[in-house]
């Protein structure tokens, strides 16, 4: 059971060249895979391909295989994909429906489309709000939110569909450090406690260091490195690829350069998660 890309090569409709070239990646339930890389590397395109929106919704040519729990995304309809693999884009304002009067109703938009009973919709919305700690936003007008709040609401809207996998394209791009940490903690707990597999594109390597189980580096459409988070983020080639390593890695290198050394435990990233658990409504916790 995985979200898997195997030899995935993708070209936008009318484009002269491929944006992704033979990408092999897999996201397993309960694990977080971070994706980093320079601008124009193809990260956002990979999100579209992984979530099945490309080519289903935007056209283009996909070669290779993209599967969700063994099912080719090309064989699934968009609404079927939405329940298996949720996707969040960079710009939160384009992800809100624009028709809801309150944040609560905005979150209910997806479950309503599925024709779920009102009770279940309410449960899912409350659960998504609680998971991201934004219950206080529920009565607010979605059009009047700050960028960071809108991003959290957009993420909660995806969570309300209870997908088995999440594909997140820079979900913290508009968040302050506190909001970033909140989202990081929530996602890590979501993966750990409900078995959601998460693919997250993120420039903030500090965040990935604390929440990702593995990291892959994408450059010019190729996966050029992949492995355990600590190993990939400590790769000396990372900076040359346009990705800034976490502060702990940079500090360690700076100390090494002047011949100093510290106990590695002092430079280890703190684990995330913390107190509290996530109870997925109607599922009794983890996913079968």
């Amino acid at each position, binding site marked *: 059971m995985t979200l898997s890309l195997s030899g995935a090569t993708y070209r936008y409709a009318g484009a002269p060249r491929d944006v992704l070239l033979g990408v092999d990646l897999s996201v397993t339930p309960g694990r977080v895979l971070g994706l980093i890389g320079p601008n124009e590397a193809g990260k956002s395109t990979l999100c579209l391909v992984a979530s099945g929106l490309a080519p289903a919704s935007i056209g283009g040519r996909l070669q290779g295989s993209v599967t969700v729990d063994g099912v080719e995304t090309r064989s699934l309809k968009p609404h079927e994909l939405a329940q298996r693999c949720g996707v969040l884009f960079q710009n939160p304002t384009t992800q809100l*429906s624009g028709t809801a009067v309150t944040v609560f109703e905005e979150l209910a938009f997806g479950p309503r489309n599925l024709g779920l009973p009102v009770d279940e919709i*309410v449960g899912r919305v409350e659960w998504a709000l609680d998971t991201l700690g934004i219950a206080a936003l529920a009565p607010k007008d979605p059009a009047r939110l700050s960028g960071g709040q809108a991003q959290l609401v957009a993420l909660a809207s995806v969570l309300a569909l209870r997908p088995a996998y999440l594909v997140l394209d820079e979900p913290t791009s508009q968040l302050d450090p506190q909001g970033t940490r909140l989202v990081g903690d929530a996602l890590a707990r979501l993966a750990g406690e409900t078995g959601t597999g998460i693919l997250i594109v993120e420039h903030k390597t500090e965040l990935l260091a604390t929440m990702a189980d593995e990291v892959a580096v994408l450059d010019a459409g190729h996966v050029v490195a992949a492995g355990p988070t600590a190993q990939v983020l400590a790769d000396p080639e990372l900076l040359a690829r346009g990705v800034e390593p976490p502060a702990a890695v940079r500090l360690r290198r700076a100390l090494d350069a002047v011949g100093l050394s510290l106990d590695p435990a002092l430079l280890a990233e703190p684990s995330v998660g913390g107190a509290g658990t996530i109870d997925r409504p109607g599922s009794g916790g983890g996913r079968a």
Partner: protein
Amino acid sequence: MTADGEIGTRRSTLPEYVLRPTSGPYRSLNPATKLIIGIVEVVAAFVVGHWTGPLLVLLVIALVGWRAHVTRQLLLVGSLTLPVVGSILLINTFLLPGATDAILRVGPLAPTWSGLAFGLQVTLRLLAISLALALVYLTTPIDDLLSDLEARGLGRRLVFVVGAAVNTVPRTIERAAEILDAQRARGLDTEGRFWQRARGVLPLAAPVIFGALTEVEEQTMALEARAFSAPARRTVLRPLPDSAAQRLLRWALFLGAVAAVAGEMAGLLRLP
């Protein structure tokens, strides 16, 4: 939040701010009823007599607006039509073809009584139609209206397009203001003489239009990612009140409007 339906180990129901209870007899009507009333008012203002229809409709709107506490907003809407109705009145008063009953003559200008009367009729019709639609808008949340129409079988996509279009207006205005500020910060002169202002239109309009178009694709994908195209009948989050009496009223109004149109076309309605 009260508890009502069971979800896992939790019991939940819709919060009060989603239920949005309405107050007052008119506001509490089903959105479809208010829409039908509005449409019938428009029809009546247009086809019933020369003066009777528009004046009757304006009277009804004034009474309902007073009871629904939207008189001030209606007056504002009415004032917004002044430039249009003023020009209609002037043009007809001075330039109605075939009119010879001059009120007075000032050089080449000769306003006529029949032109003034016709202009007033058109003005009243326009005002009645504007206020009838405004009354529906002011007393019915657009979300309620669309939800109700969707529950009655109107297509999900059509409902969404209408709802999104209505809600896009304030966002577009905000975006235009942001772009205007950004262009000013870069030295664009948007004030002063007419030609200076005119030169500023393109740098303002182009980003607004192209920005909106660029967002459409991402919005479309975001909708797909939220199961918008699911074949299931969309859940109505909060059913809106309706009754047999309202259904009867809607049919009566509809049939009355049809009868009025037919009567007017057949020349049976001889109202002033």
